[in-house]
């Protein structure tokens, strides 16, 4: 059994915020507070949550934009912390990202050919001709004509730019692409194109995805498994189908209840939760969700629930179970 492409154990990232006089009583924002998950080859893990849940910080940690305060990230079985310069570059070569905004993720003064070729230039010694050939290859893979390579980004629409971004993310035979809300900024009719394209690429190339999103329907569609985050912790994980059939954690249920209907006669269970997401500086005691939870019990404000297995190959952290 080959090791999973990515494995994250006990990942924590705390941002210190100096409060109080003389810097005493230092408080930190616990953006990510103990997160575990694995992503296998050719698999898509969906990460869903609202603002402040830590999904953006998690992606930054995976992309090495931030250093974890605690915990380990293992790539193909090898702990990143133990990797030296050359291996770290190999990691960067194998793990790429596609961001949300197609209008600022492509360098405006570079031609498409150069944009897509850049990872190759950084990581390989290929000749100019070999690079051009590979660039043409990935452009075709994402549904663009190779002759667009000579153009500049501003000549493309949003959906086309995301394709270019995907091409760039694939060019170095990537193993894992972190997709940070890749379709949220696109028109509705174009979203389907990109989602279909991503799914087709996964089938063809066997690349894994970490799909971060806020729209339940989109995330559920493209992901094999879904992890639900709330205030820095994962509260539930399950196979996509199992989660949609039976969401167990009250927060997951609230997300489903808040999801927009697909037909006027769809009446979701009325469990629209009250209140706002609490500040990360003043985390609730015990279970972080308990102030807003309709099923809160006395124990919920005292003891933080641990993750326990649930049906559909996942886990849920809730005292109800």
């Amino acid at each position: 059994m080959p090791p999973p492409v990515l494995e994250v154990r006990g990942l924590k990232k705390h941002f210190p915020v100096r409060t109080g006089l003389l810097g005493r009583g230092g408080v930190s924002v616990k953006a990510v507070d103990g997160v575990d998950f694995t992503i296998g080859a050719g698999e898509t893990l969906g990460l869903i949550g609202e603002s402040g849940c830590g999904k953006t910080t998690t992606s930054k940690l995976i992309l090495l934009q931030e250093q974890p305060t605690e915990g380990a990230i293992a790539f193909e079985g090898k702990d990143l912390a133990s990797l030296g310069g050359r291996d770290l570059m190999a990691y960067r070569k194998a793990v790429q990202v596609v961001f949300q905004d197609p209008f600022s993720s492509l360098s405006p003064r570079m031609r498409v050919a150069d944009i897509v070729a850049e990872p190759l230039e950084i990581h390989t010694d290929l000749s100019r001709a070999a690079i051009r050939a590979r660039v043409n290859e990935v452009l075709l893979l994402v549904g663009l004509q190779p002759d667009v390579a000579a153009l500049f980004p501003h000549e493309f629409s949003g959906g086309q730019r995301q394709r270019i971004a995907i091409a760039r993310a694939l060019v170095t035979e990537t193993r894992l692409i972190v997709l940070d809300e890749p379709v949220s900024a696109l028109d509705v009719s174009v979203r389907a194109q990109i989602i279909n394209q991503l799914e087709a690429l996964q089938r063809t190339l066997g690349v894994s995805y970490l799909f971060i999103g806020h729209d339940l329907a989109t995330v559920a569609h493209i992901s094999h498994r879904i992890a639900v985050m709330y205030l820095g912790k994962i509260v539930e994980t399950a196979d996509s189908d199992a989660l949609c059939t039976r969401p167990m954690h009250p927060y997951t249920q609230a997300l489903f209840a808040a999801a927009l209907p697909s037909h006027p006669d769809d009446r979701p269970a009325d469990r629209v939760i009250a209140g706002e997401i609490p500040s990360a500086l003043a985390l609730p005691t015990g279970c972080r969700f308990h102030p807003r939870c309709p099923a809160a019990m006395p124990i919920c404000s005292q003891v933080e629930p641990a993750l326990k297995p649930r049906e559909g190959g996942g886990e849920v952290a809730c005292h109800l179970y």
Partner: protein
Amino acid sequence: MAPVLDVVDLQTHFHTFGGARVVKAVERVSFTLHEGETLGLVGESGSGKTTTCLSIVGLLPRGARIVGGRVLFDGDDLTRRSQRELRRIRGRQIAVILQDPMASLNPLFTIFRQVAEPAFFHQQMRGKTLKARVQHLLKAVRIPSPEWRMREYPHQMSGGMRQRIVGAIALAGGPRLVIADEPTTNLDVTIQAQYLDMLKDIQRDTGVALIFVTHNLGIVAKMCDRVAVMYAGRIVEQAPVRELFDAPKHPYTRALLGSVPKLGSKEPLYSIAGQPPNLASLPPGCAFHPRCPEALPRCASDEPGDFPQGDGSVARCWLVDHAAARA
């Protein structure tokens, strides 16, 4: 009962590059809206939905002009009104809620001042009456503890609360019509649900007519009584909401419905071929025909008119004309 708003054959054009290029942003758009009714204006970027709303309230940007049609608000043609007269109507009779609450709120003024402003100017409220009104509005938009909240500033509130305050400002003048342009796009999912429920309750209580501009069909399903689907500046289909979802007549509507992922279903998504249209150079005939999977030869040369269907919907498509002709 007379409609609150009656838009007839509205046409708005943009003149850019010193008049050398004309973009027909809104082309023969017509719809009516009654008291207590919610109309969804659905479309993607470039469809003309925002320009339509700006045309209604007279807030078009530089270079844009209404070149045809009428906008009848309680029978009064707003296109004939001066900016001065429109200013009296805006905020009092017609209110607008925009997408970005931070852009709509002045960071330098307290919440009280901003919510009170419409009532202060349009209804000349003062003193205790004014304060009571502000508190009433903040309660209506479900802001907790309004008495001390109203002394705070926008930056002290969360995004969801700010959007609600924008809603309170919109309602402060006691409008007959509220135009909401994608107000929930930047909100978290659960906050969005709360906000939409709140809007629905307010509408039920006050009978205000609502135009909800969105690209999200889920919001349409939840909020709207009737829907107008826009494409390239035209309304391609207009129908009561149930009929739109159950029996969409226009291929674009069908394609949109098919391209949205449904919760719990892994069915492949329908992706519409091609790109959204370039309004400066539209193809002849039906604007959608290059991307239409069911296009007829006629579609490439003749622009279709509006064809009413039996169930209360109207579609601008040759296909439904054929169906009617065959029947």
